[in-house]
């Protein structure tokens, strides 16, 4: 029984971390059809922002939940203005340019921070489930993921900003004819997507530590989660994370973490073969 509870928490955690690392990419892909291959580096920069802020005496909570998203959000807007905006509609070229950006950022952070892992210890200690101990920080990550998904859903569903964003997403020309400026919507959306990636990077930094090439570990997983989820931002990310997180964690328990990853990737290939439009393209056509 205790073991089942522990397994359930681990599965929830795997789902939550997948959803967290993917939501920023999902927003950017869902809105603008831009595959941002520098996404992993946005997460990495979020981690560094949190760690540097903490080492300057800022409370770890503010560093993770405020500093990391703000810093990476600003970086995101700069990237959109200097690179991405020239490439809208050229999906392959955006992929290549953001891949270049990803290499560039890895090189830059290696030059600045060195090629070593830095970390901060996870706050909150641990709790007991029967004979097992689990980190309370796990529950915090799950809570953050829920809050972020609910927040993105509410903003898109019930606010004016969300209405404008959804309108631009459906038909940019029509939105422009009604007085919306699509370039501004795109810049803001890209910034928000980047900020959420920064948040995820900050929140996960105590778990994984941060090093310049950590983005590679993130980008493939979030990439397949977003593609597996399809165009609907929240329901797609949530359903794909639930599927892949469960597969990953159960395979990890049954074998080793490495084969957990392999099972996740194999599940993704099968899913894309069966549902090329992603889960939300099949089941939540009108969802957000």
């Amino acid at each position, binding site marked *: 029984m205790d073991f089942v509870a522990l397994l359930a928490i681990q599965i929830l955690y795997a789902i939550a971390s997948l959803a967290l690392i993917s939501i920023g990419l999902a927003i950017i892909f869902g809105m603008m059809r831009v*595959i941002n291959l520098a996404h992993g580096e946005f997460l990495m920069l979020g981690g560094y922002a949190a760690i540097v802020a903490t080492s300057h005496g800022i409370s770890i909570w503010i560093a993770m939940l405020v500093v990391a998203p703000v810093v990476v959000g600003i970086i995101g807007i700069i990237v959109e203005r200097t*690179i991405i905006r*020239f*490439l809208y*509609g*050229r*999906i*392959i*070229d955006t*992929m*290549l*340019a953001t*891949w*270049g*950006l*990803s*290499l*560039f*950022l*890895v*090189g*830059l952070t*290696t*030059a600045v921070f060195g090629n070593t892992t830095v970390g901060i210890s996870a706050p909150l200690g641990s709790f007991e489930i029967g004979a097992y101990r689990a980190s309370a920080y796990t529950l915090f990550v799950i809570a953050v993921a829920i809050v972020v998904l609910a927040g993105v859903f509410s903003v898109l569903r019930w606010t004016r900003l969300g209405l404008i964003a959804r309108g631009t997403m459906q038909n940019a020309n029509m939105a422009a004819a009604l007085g919306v400026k699509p370039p501004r919507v795109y810049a803001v959306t890209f910034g928000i997507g980047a900020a959420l990636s920064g948040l995820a990077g900050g929140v996960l930094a105590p778990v994984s530590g941060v090093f310049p090439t950590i983005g*590679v570990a993130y980008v*493939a997983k979030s*990439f*397949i989660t977003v*593609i597996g989820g399809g165009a609907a931002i929240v329901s797609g990310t949530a359903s794909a994370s639930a599927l892949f997180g469960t597969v990953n964690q159960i395979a990890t328990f049954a074998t*080793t973490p*490495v*084969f957990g*990853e*392999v099972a996740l*990737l*194999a599940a*993704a*290939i099968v899913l*894309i*073969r069966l549902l*090329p439009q992603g889960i939300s393209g099949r089941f939540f056509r009108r969802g957000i």
Partner: protein
Amino acid sequence: MNARARNLAGLVLVAIIGLAVLFLTPRLADLDTVLELTVYMVMAILALSLALVWGYGGILCFGQSAFFGLGAYTYAIAMFNMGESTLPFLLAIALPAAFAALLGYFIFYGRISDVYLGVITLTVTLILFNSVNSTAGPEFHIGVAKLGGFNGIPGIPSLNFPGDKNATIDLEGMFYLSTAILLATYFGLRLLLASRFGRIIVGIRENERRAELLGYDPRAYKLATFTIGAALAGLAGCLFANWGSFVSPTIFGLAQSAQIIIWVIVGGRGTLIGPIIGCIGIQWLSAFLGANQSTGSGSPWAALLSNAPLVLGAILIAFVLLVPKGLVPTLGDWGQALLRPRVRERIADAAPMPVGEE
């Protein structure tokens, strides 16, 4: 000069330069340089494989390094088990091709394209990397060959003349072999692309639906292109395993995949000579920057410039934004504009490939 004459002149020029490099280098350069050039030639074969698949077939494969790595590992494992290189050499080409045929069947007959194709090829590469990386223990072996996990496989025996396992090919021989294979690949691909098959795959790249309505099955043609590309990548992998007599899982890595794509985009999609130039140029640049680092001149700018990912990333961004067609086609356009200053040719649409939206 009309198009046909220009084409012929280009071919002759490449043949002359190629033969000159093949025969003169070992006579004029020292062994270090020859060794360095050998790996450039091997990588240029890899660049050609993606030039075919992406530049002509329109299939953006993020996993070309998977076939490259598979070729290298196949050669290494077969070589340890057999000791005579003819069969391992052929296996290193056949196995990646078979794997690509299987994967390609899955992709193309499922009508997966664009971004999704990118995801699947990327994912397969990561699966291979993760799996091979985790085989460090002694329990992972195929025949007598230990897989070695993240440590890789050292001491791979080199190729020998077919049939005689004591007549191994020395370092200079490897240069001749690699360069000759590169030239053969280049001219072979030119021939392939000039054939009916080549015309059809370019037609499919330009407009898949139209080609299909004309009665060609794009699935079969894409699958064939993908498989040929994988066979070439496997061949390059085999030569690479020979060159360093070492393979490790990093050759499956994302960085390796990124490099191949950078070579092709810098040199130019839709040409064969472009990716070769891009490949050799970028590798030379990387080696040059790396060499600068080791001497360590101390200034922060030198340190920044010796940072290979930083420089490669900046190059990739700059090319996508400023020279999206790549060096060779852009220079070709300029050359034409110079030759005919009065005639202003409108160059149709900088976007190289249709996005394929319904």
